[in-house]
């Protein structure tokens, strides 16, 4: 009996999917649910069942009846809507029409993403002047008077000893002066170098400087923060390594490399078979810089890093010519 009911249900569900118009559907209803319908007939037999079986089979039979009725009415409504058309006799395979939208610059998109990651670690986002004094761009950063970086071949010089900032590091001392310690901040922004342009170099590009000053900040902290950032940004666990690097405003200074994300460190053409990609200079802030910021280097220490932001944007979107970013070409910009 139970099997009979279940078979009946299967059979109905199978037949109903093949029905395409309301006439046939009505026939099907009569066949199963009508006064002399198959289900009705089965239901009639319930009364002849043994007493102990009656409630169980009765319940099942009723459930199946309800289900068939529900499927029937759903199918009926769909067929009705299809037949009447409701003014929908157009070609739905035509391409969708869409409202045009504007676009954020790809650098803006990546910048906001990075800002949000650092914001979660308590870093504020700040910016500052682009026309800068020698003091903040070099002197306060412990860059000696005769350091090659001050040369005309690296820096754009303006009148009155002013310059176009060559690094976002110009904000290190400005921010310490303004906010004091403890401090956590990032400074994204554009910087300028007096160098010829090609597909991978531009005279105007973007850096993202980071600075953290507090009590007892160490190298391990720097690595942990960067690892945390990079793993979130690249959405995968990344390995980093430090090796010695020299920059006047950090001591010790490092180059941070990231294990090649293409080959996972095995060595490939992207990482020149080394398994590592040079990512950014960083280090513990030089005591003279902390002092220039008006803090006591005996009390405070900190780290600084300078992310080659434009390069990250190019990596993210596989952009092979840096100059596209500032071309203003809408054919390029509309892709983001």
């Amino acid at each position, binding site marked *: 009996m139970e099997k009979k009911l279940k078979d009946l249900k299967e059979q109905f569900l199978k037949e109903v999917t093949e029905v395409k118009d309301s006439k046939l559907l009505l026939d099907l209803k009569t066949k199963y649910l009508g006064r002399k319908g198959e289900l009705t007939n089965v239901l009639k037999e319930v009364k002849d069942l043994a007493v102990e079986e009656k409630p169980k089979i009765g319940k099942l039979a009723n459930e199946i009846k309800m289900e068939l009725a529900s499927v029937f009415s759903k199918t009926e409504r769909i067929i009705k809507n299809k037949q009447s058309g409701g003014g929908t006799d157009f070609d739905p395979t035509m391409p969708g029409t869409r409202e045009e939208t*504007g*676009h954020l610059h790809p650098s803006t998109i990546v910048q906001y993403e990075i800002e949000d990651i650092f914001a979660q670690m308590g870093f504020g986002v700040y910016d500052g002047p682009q026309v800068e004094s020698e*003091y903040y761009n070099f002197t306060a950063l412990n860059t000696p008077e005769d350091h090659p970086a001050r040369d005309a071949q690296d820096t754009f010089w303006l009148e009155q000893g002013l310059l176009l900032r060559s690094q976002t590091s110009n904000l290190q001392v400005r921010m310490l002066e303004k906010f004091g310690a403890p401090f956590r901040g990032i400074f994204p922004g554009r910087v300028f170098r007096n160098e010829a342009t090609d597909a991978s170099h531009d005279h105007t590009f973007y850096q993202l400087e980071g600075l953290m000053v*507090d009590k007892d900040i160490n*190298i391990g902290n720097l690595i942990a923060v960067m690892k945390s950032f990079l793993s979130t940004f690249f959405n995968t666990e990344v390995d980093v390594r430090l090796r010695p690097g020299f920059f006047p405003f950090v001591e010790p200074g490092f180059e941070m490399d990231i294990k090649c994300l293409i080959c996972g460190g095995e060595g490939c053409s992207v990482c020149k078979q080394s398994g590592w990609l040079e990512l950014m200079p960083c280090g513990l802030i030089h005591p003279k810089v902390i002092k220039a910021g008006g803090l006591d280097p005996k009390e405070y220490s900190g780290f600084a890093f300078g992310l080659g932001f434009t390069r990250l944007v190019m990596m993210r979107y596989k952009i092979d010519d840096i100059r596209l970013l500032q071309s203003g070409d809408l054919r390029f*910009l509309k892709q983001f």
Partner: protein
Amino acid sequence: MYLSLDWAKDWIKLPKDLETKQLALDFTMAIVEVEEVIERGANLKDIVVGKINEIAKHPDADRLEVCQVDIGDSVEQIVCGGINLSKGMLVAVAKVGSRVKWHGEGDLVMMAKTKIRGVESSGMIAAAEEIGLENLFPQKSDKEILDLSELKLKAGEELAEALELNDTIIDIDNKSINHRPDLWGQYGLARELAAIYKLKLKDYPNFELKGKNETKLKVTVEDKKNCFRYLGLAIKNIKVAESPWWLKKRLEAVGIRPINNIVDVTNYVMYELGQPMHAFDAKHIEGDHIIVKQAAKGEKFITLDGENRKLPEGALMIADAKKYVAIAGVMGGQNSEIGIDTSEIILESANFRAASVRRTATAIGLRSESSTRFEKSLDPVLAGTAIRRAAELILQLCPEAYIASKLVDVDNNPFKPVTLEVSEELINNRFGLIIPTAEIKDTLQRLKFDLKYKAKTFTIGVPSFRATKDISIPEDIVEEVARIYGYDNIKFELPKVNIDSPSVNLDHVAARDIKRWFSLSQKYYELYNYPFTNQAWAKKLGLELNNHLRVKNALSPEQVYLNMSLLPNLLARAEENMRWYDEFRIYELERTFDKISHGTYHTDDSRKKFLPKQDKYLAGVEVSKKSKEDLFLSIKGMFSALMEHLNVEVEFEESDIEYASIAYEIKYKDIILGQFGLLEDGLFDSNDVNVNVAFWQLNFTLLLKYINKVKKYATLAKFPAVYRDMAVVVDKGLKWADLEAEIVRISPLIRHLEPFDVFSGKGIEEGQKSIAWHLEFRSNDRTLLAEDVDKLMDDILAILQKKFKAILR
């Protein structure tokens, strides 16, 4: 900078099982970046010493010979065109399968067995340039093959082996050792290797000078400020000749072309110690007198390379009693060059102020091996070590030579000994790890620091070769210990700090909001432009180039002036994009630069002077096929919406802008926040431009002050509104703003007016227009009745009839 491992073996013994790849990695991780590891013998694979047994004329070619060459295991037949072939000659044979540079040009090619004009030939008798040995064996002609007869070699021996060229060269990135004057010589690099591998480092020998005092050499340093030390020594009875093989080989390994024994020795010492040296031909030094002084304005001097160079005023020069003989630290002069007839020399080993050498080298455009080293602030002590070493080598190479003067030493070394007190705690705290005390001690001692340890504090004497600029503060010692101990050992741990939210940068929050608003709700494309203004467009907009901040060392004449407005570049980009699109909207948010006024950023810690004002602007351009009216009103509507979004109550006021056919100001109270308008026609170069162009700009820095985040909601209306329409015919010149002002004044029950149709022409008298609008009436305390509204409609009409002679339609 090249490090030859063969050379370094003079002082250290590298672990036998150390692979060069690992050495390069360790070097990079603890010292400086290695660019490349060069196995010097690699290109000499399958190139062997051969002995020519027989020579016969090629039957079919006048200029070729057929040689039978003994290469140890076999005798091979090789066809060769060399002009110096002779029987019994020892030659370099590139066997089949080896790789050579054909005629010294192009890429390496693989040797194969071949027939040359019908005669079989297995391999090649090579010229020096074909196997990369042209520096060691200079060729007189490209037809000359390498003659090894003078060297006592065995036929069949691998050439690299026979010539002892199986050296490994570590190529170090020069930029990464700018701060390390001690790493510009082989000995300094060996010292680092000794530290990382804990090897014994042989002390550098100090050669005892013994000689006569025939030459009364005199050194006068006039410019003590720029010449820290000058040592001179005369050596007589030298014989200028070719250097011995071991010397040539080492120089060549580090990229120096051997010249003659004297010059080679000065170069050898420079590469060994990092100390540049110079040798003068003593017969050209007047009065045996060396004077160090500054050049006067406009003087010229011919350097060794034959160039007549204009000297910058104040350039430090080496002179004799009558003339200049060298540009200090940069290059020697032609007038005292070592030649084949030189028999007496004066050796110079000196130390000059880094900045002085750099300034001179830059001014004359000559960066030499010498100036490159002096620029790093060399240790003056080194000059003494170097001249002794050079004298030793010269006496070794010229057995008849003898020292002919006293060692003259004018020493004004300005560098004071550096002693640092460094607590062990500082090292461990900065490193974030406890390093065993013994390990710290061992590392520092291997790096030649002088150490005392007491009460958990190191008293550290910095060796003179690290004390000229490199090591000056305790943090420098942290780095020394940490890099040798290994950065890989650092346990990384997020900083433990108090949670405090950073101060919010309103500027930045607003910028993000506004950019999203424009890009995601207003169909605007965000552009990044260069800071250099487009001059053609600046002129079109009437911006005087002289009022712009100027770049003194611009890359090109187009990149001289800094943007005082964002519009010139935006309009230039708009013009370019017209090639691809006929309708688009673009904007930029960036700083502009004001030559005349000062902003709030101070120039230094005295906080008395301020940088030029560099307010951020938000500016945009819309290129559109809409009518001028529609375009203008859509821009106006956009600003109404934006200001509502920012909760800034602004007014729009007509304004005159020279490049606009119509322009309005955006004002908050009396403050002008920005402008918008339509660009005057005809400013675009292309003739077939059939679009209208709107422009706008807002002073973002100013706007920020008035963005109001405090917003209070208005209670929802309790009573229903009544809506009516009205249409009148009025004078065509009547402005909606005037009409609206009259109507709203009538009653506070009139809540809102919205024009929906303006029409003139057919059915309307000349000079008149029909204007229709929706009206909304509502009261806060009751439901308005039809009669109330009818009365108001009558009042409105009456006023309009009276004020504007309006006729109801």
